[in-house]
């Protein structure tokens, strides 16, 4: 039984977008999440601070923050949070909102997700070589050299295919995803 906030629609938006998000209302700003985060040092804001900003209704700064995109889904924050807030899920929710509204300054991470999914949607399976190739050319052309030896190794050891596998019932999958996107758009 929660009183919906009239003054802070953004909080309600986030809570509604993340499964189990209602717990966010009880954040006590202890910083366990920010302390636990392995990529915390590289984040614009610690998760805790992000929650304070959500509480303050700062929609655009929150969605523009790189914090969710630096979340590595290690779930340390989630298992340690004393208020049992599903923080990782909330990070996913913030990413979805940012992508939907195109609110991100550095497109590296969003594009990585999109490229990854591009192969999945077209073939039903992921395609590492394609993914890394495309992604690196777009975002880190020189990075490719740094890991050249690895790339070569991976290929020579046959750990990277040159084409993704296509699943049999690809049409079925496409229909499923099309319907799913249609329904998501209505929420």
């Amino acid at each position, binding site marked *: 039984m929660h009183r919906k906030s009239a003054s802070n629609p953004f909080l309600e938006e986030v809570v509604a977008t993340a*499964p*189990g998000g209602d717990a966010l209302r009880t954040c006590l700003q202890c910083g366990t999440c920010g302390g636990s985060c*392995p*990529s915390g*040092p*590289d984040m614009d804001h610690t998760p805790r601070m992000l929650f304070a900003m959500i509480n303050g209704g700062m929609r655009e700064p929150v969605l523009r923050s790189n914090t969710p*995109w*630096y979340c*590595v*889904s*290690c*779930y*340390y924050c*989630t*298992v340690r949070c004393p208020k049992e807030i*599903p923080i*990782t899920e909330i990070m*996913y929710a913030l*990413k*979805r909102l940012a*992508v939907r509204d195109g609110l991100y300054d550095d497109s*590296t991470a*969003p594009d*990585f*997700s*999109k490229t*990854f*999914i591009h192969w*999945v949607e077209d073939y*039903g*399976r*992921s395609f*590492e070589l394609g993914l890394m190739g495309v*992604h*690196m050319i777009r975002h880190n052309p020189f990075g490719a050299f*740094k*890991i050249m030896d*690895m790339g070569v190794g*991976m290929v020579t*050891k*046959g*750990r*990277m*295919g040159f084409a993704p*596998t296509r*699943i*049999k*019932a690809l049409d*079925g*999958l496409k*229909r*499923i*995803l*099309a*319907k*799913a*996107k249609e*329904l*998501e758009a209505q*929420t």
Partner: protein
Amino acid sequence: MKYSYFPGCSLEKNAASYDVSTRAVASRLGMQFTEVEDWNCCGATEYVSLNLTAAYSLIARNLAQATKNAGLDQVVAPCSACYLNLRKADKVLGQDAGLADRVGKALAAGGLSYKPGSLHIRHLLDVLYQDIGLEALGAAVTKPLSGLRIAPYYGCMIVRPSFHNGDDDPEYPTSLDKILKALGAEVVDYPMKAHCCGGHMTQISEASGFEMIRRLIKGADDYQTDVIATICPMCQLNLDGFQGAMNRHFSTNYHIPVLYFTQLIGLAMGMAPKDVGIGDEIVSSAKALIKIGTAVEPEPAGPPKRKKDDKSLPMPGRGGGVA
């Protein structure tokens, strides 16, 4: 013991050695795997960042496919990401009615359906630890890994978020430690055992990605580790594939091979290295594996005897006093 088997994209190519060794070890232990028919990618951590309903529908399709293996409600996934996605979807769809309804409609569009809770999604580690058990594993060992110092590395997604069903400790798990001990290996008390390998960070921000890899490799090196045992393709790729790049980035010179725990089990069962995909790793394990067979003094059992002049205070839980 019969199971549905969900290999996942990684095990097709990049982690083929995990797939090979898993199947080899499983059949030796009398487990029968039936691969989930025409399975698709689980979406890793990427799809849910873009579209909730689509992400869960993608996963749900796999669950629906798995139910086609008549009579097999136990699904084994060796990949931590696949395991977590499948299991989380099964759980969330049982709780979030709205999402479950949308996903149900989406599946219907593909002529499929899935009822949450009708499958038990389990990670390979859990199955080997619970169903096969240390005794059976120990009994199957013909070539103990004596003298090999192994750092058990769990990574994140199998121990967290813990689903409160008697799974291993989310902070300091021990099941892999025990399995490796059963293989006769010298298991190091690896403090980073459940820390994060950085996932896709190498692709998002090299610096952060490499730093997370460095912590783990350094941690293992501090304990004179010969081999890191992993249970997840993503972890293996990061620690093994990117170890060289990481070394260059920090001008360090670590060389610690990273093998799948199933490869080590296979070796301990006397299988030929190539039969369990040894050699696929970028950081060669050849030098480390030479050690296998060399004798090693057994670990002292229990707390050491107290000397007269010993002023040290007892560690917690050694008490024998009245409660």
